[in-house]
């Protein structure tokens, strides 16, 4: 169904419990305190999103297939 005025968008959120070294946690706290992010959760969400974008399955498949081609037919 297309979204439009009056349409409710519900985003379901999962809750994860993570352990971080204190030093890393301190850096998260600093970023929030300095106003770069609204919360530590925002930072973790952003970091996970970026990690997943850079490791998308189709991207990893492409890299591996390119490796096979280079291995077979590279000029070096």
């Amino acid at each position, binding site marked *: 169904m297309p979204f439009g005025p009056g349409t409710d968008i519900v985003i379901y959120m999962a809750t994860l419990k993570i352990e971080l070294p204190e030093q890393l946690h301190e850096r998260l706290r600093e970023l929030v305190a300095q106003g770069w992010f609204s919360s530590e959760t925002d930072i973790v969400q952003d970091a996970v999103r970026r*990690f997943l974008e850079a490791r998308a*399955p189709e991207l*990893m498949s492409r890299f*591996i297939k390119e490796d*096979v081609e280079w291995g077979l037919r*590279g000029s070096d």
Partner: protein
Amino acid sequence: MTELVVCNAGPLIHLDQLKCLDLLSDFLTLLVPDVVWNEVLKYRPHALPQSFATLVPAPPFPDAKVTALCRAFSLDAGEAACLAILAERGSAIFLTDDAAARLVAEEMGIEVHGTLGVLIRSVRRGKRTPPEILRLLDELPSQSTLFIKSTLLADIKRKLREEWRLGE
């Protein structure tokens, strides 16, 4: 033969696990940032500096664009050191098995390959036979921490058997 190769920790660790570290000697000059070598020693403590690898320090003042890209993609110190060296050296190959590092390298216009490519290349270079490499690919999931989805690995092995005209 390729003039210059800069190698990240992944291929060093994975090739060592497969007892194929010698394949890196088939590159004319292989540079390994010292921060990368320290990382390798953490996971493969028995690995000793190889005579074919030159350990180099990371550039003290890396290119600002490289630094920004490394931060944006959350690359670790070893990956950032490799890319900083590559940015300074110009024409060179980057060996890494990390998808994010590979993505940044592509953005920088750097030719980049991984462990799998080095293994397959060894046949083309006459350093290994096709059956040897197929056997290594069979052993890959149990002998190495390099992860390749099982269906994709099966496709690759099938393609290689065809290319090398080998039966099942």
